[in-house]
């Protein structure tokens, strides 16, 4: 991963983060009950910064992204609380027409499966140009020219000739680039990437992450990378929020968390993944399964699987508190985990 120095956010008085999520709560109301998919999530991201939201399936990471974008399937999903502030403005409080103005222009999103995110019956050049036609009222010919420029920027070979091709005529990696082109067309300030490379081969993944890094640096975008891959996070992220069962379990700068995790879940994950550069470790698996979101365990959500669980973990839900400067963890024994004494 090409390295760019992370700009330090100005922590002066009146400092407003580019995008801030504060105590977001999302519920899914179904016939069988209410599932708390997102249960009090807070994080922020600044220009040029990459925040990784790490979690497995059922952790609520994708739902959080959809709620930020305002494209949650509702019903059955409902934002039950919290705020999402873009440059200080609460997006959740806005009516839909105003909200739409932010989508694509200020905050943009790319998804895991490019084939289902792209319309199969329109050529890709047309779809990219649509961003310009619809949002900026550009005339067709100029929009098309800009679309081809974008395709070249995302390194699609023979862009001009291929602008008339349909999504199924491209490979997975190329489709992902097209989706990226659409997402950055209007120069958004924040890009949310939901598992952008999970479905791709590892060499293609490297290409795409490389491209995202270049684009981010060039345009000073804030990047929220949603993933389950600890390797990708280590490569590209500046800070990381680890999600489990709808809540953030740990937040830290990336450089610190791998060597010294402060939450048993993070610790368990790190100990259970095989590494290409190490051989012959015993993988110690986390026992059990992620919880049923309709019946989250009392106390700490992780307690049925936690090797260090004590009586207090079964009763009291640990809030996300600062452990050391710049790092927080939702564990009653975060200090001990951090020190390595458990």
């Amino acid at each position, binding site marked *: *991963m090409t390295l760019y120095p992370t700009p330090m956010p100005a922590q002066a008085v009146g400092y407003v983060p580019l995008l801030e999520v504060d105590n977001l709560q999302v519920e899914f109301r179904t016939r069988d009950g209410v599932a708390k998919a997102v249960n009090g999530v807070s994080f922020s991201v600044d220009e040029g910064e990459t925040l990784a939201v790490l979690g*497995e399936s059922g952790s609520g990471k994708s739902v959080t992204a959809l709620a930020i974008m305002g494209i949650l399937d509702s019903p059955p999903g409902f934002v039950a609380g919290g705020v999402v502030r873009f440059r200080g403005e609460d997006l959740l409080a806005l009516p839909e027409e105003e909200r739409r103005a932010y989508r694509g222009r200020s905050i943009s999103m790319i998804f895991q499966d490019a084939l289902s995110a792209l319309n199969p019956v329109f050529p890709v050049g047309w779809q990219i140009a649509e961003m310009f036609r619809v949002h900026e009222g550009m005339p067709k010919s100029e929009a098309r020219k800009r679309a081809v420029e974008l395709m070249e920027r995302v390194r699609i070979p023979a862009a001009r000739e291929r602008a008339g091709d349909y999504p199924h005529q491209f490979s997975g990696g190329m489709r992902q680039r097209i989706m990226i082109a659409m997402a950055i067309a209007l120069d958004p300030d924040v890009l949310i990437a939901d598992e952008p490379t999970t479905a791709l081969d590892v060499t293609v993944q490297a290409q795409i992450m490389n491209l995202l890094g270049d684009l981010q640096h060039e345009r000073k975008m804030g990047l929220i990378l949603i993933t389950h891959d600890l390797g990708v996070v*280590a*490569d590209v992220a500046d800070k990381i929020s680890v999600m489990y069962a709808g809540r953030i379990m740990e937040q830290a700068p990336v450089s610190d968390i791998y060597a010294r995790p402060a939450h048993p879940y993070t610790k368990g994950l790190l100990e259970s993944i095989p*590494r290409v*550069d190490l051989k012959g470790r015993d993988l110690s698996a986390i026992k059990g*399964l*992620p919880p049923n979101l309709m019946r989250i365990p009392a106390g700490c959500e992780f307690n049925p699987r936690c090797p260090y669980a004590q009586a207090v973990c079964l009763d009291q839900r640990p809030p996300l508190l600062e452990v050391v400067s710049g790092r927080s963890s939702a564990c009653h024994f975060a200090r001990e985990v951090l020190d390595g004494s458990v």
Partner: protein
Amino acid sequence: MAASSPPDEVVLDVQDLVKHFPLTSGVVFKRHVGEVQAVDGVSFQLHRGETLGIVGESGCGKSTLAKLLMRLETPTSGKTIFKGQDIYTVSGRALRAMRRNIQIVFQDPYSSLNPRMTVGDIIGEPFDIHPDVAPRGDRRRRVQELLDVVGLNPEHINRYPHQFSGGQRQRIGIARGLALRPEIIICDEPVSALDVSVQAQVMNLLEKLQNEYGLSYIFIAHDLSVVRHISDRVAVMYLGKIVEVGSDVQIYERPTHPYTQALLSAVPVPDPSVRGRRQQIILAGDPPSPANPPSGCRFRTRCWKATELCAREVPALVVRPGTDHESACHYAAIREDVVVHH
């Protein structure tokens, strides 16, 4: 992980396997317009008690190879020798005996089990097909024993697959593969579809079973970290051919083929402190189509070392000068800057 003493006995000898799928066009009378060269001359040997990892990206032919080794497809040419016989020429009783000894575990836990059969019936089916392995009265007990061995509750013998999680279903698939006490199990991406925290559970199970039952594995996957963890030797596939094969240390620490080197440089390492310690190789473009592979060396269109010799002559998989394991490259040379050394 096999036992510490080096395994010598060859249990499976694959010789020059070729599988070309014909491409036809036309509705009523189909014209032969070309061939997808899915597997194009693959040879290797599997030793008793060893795990041979086969790694490659999409389109390399590894899934087709898995089906060929199970005789779920018959090759266009080539042999696979098991117990002195070519598995593609046997029939009748010899074929049944062969099937008992080579079994498979599939990737997708959701489609590898018949949703309308109970778990007991699924695991018991091998006994129904091969009644000589277990007498009728004994079957239930054997099935429960298998459930126990893979870490599931034997009392759940009457449940249906949809009542289990992905990881548990994978265990059921493993139990089914184990039922006839085969000598060889082909694992076709067995953990790719599982959550990170569950992958380690299943991998540990596979290793435990190998030690307990003296199994030999062919472990096919695209995730290099996973393959490294479990394999003794590794073969790298590209566009239907094996391009490099060696022990895990040889491949992962002293790769000689450019494709392997590019692959390793692209694998993200879950450790931010290694950022910048590896040389990044970004391959250009997409892999060529298996229906229309390049002449000579198939990797030459993306290789930085390619010369006119590479277009002319197909490089053989042999030990190249200056290296200690087989590689199919005219200019094979160890390159250590793409891997992290500890």
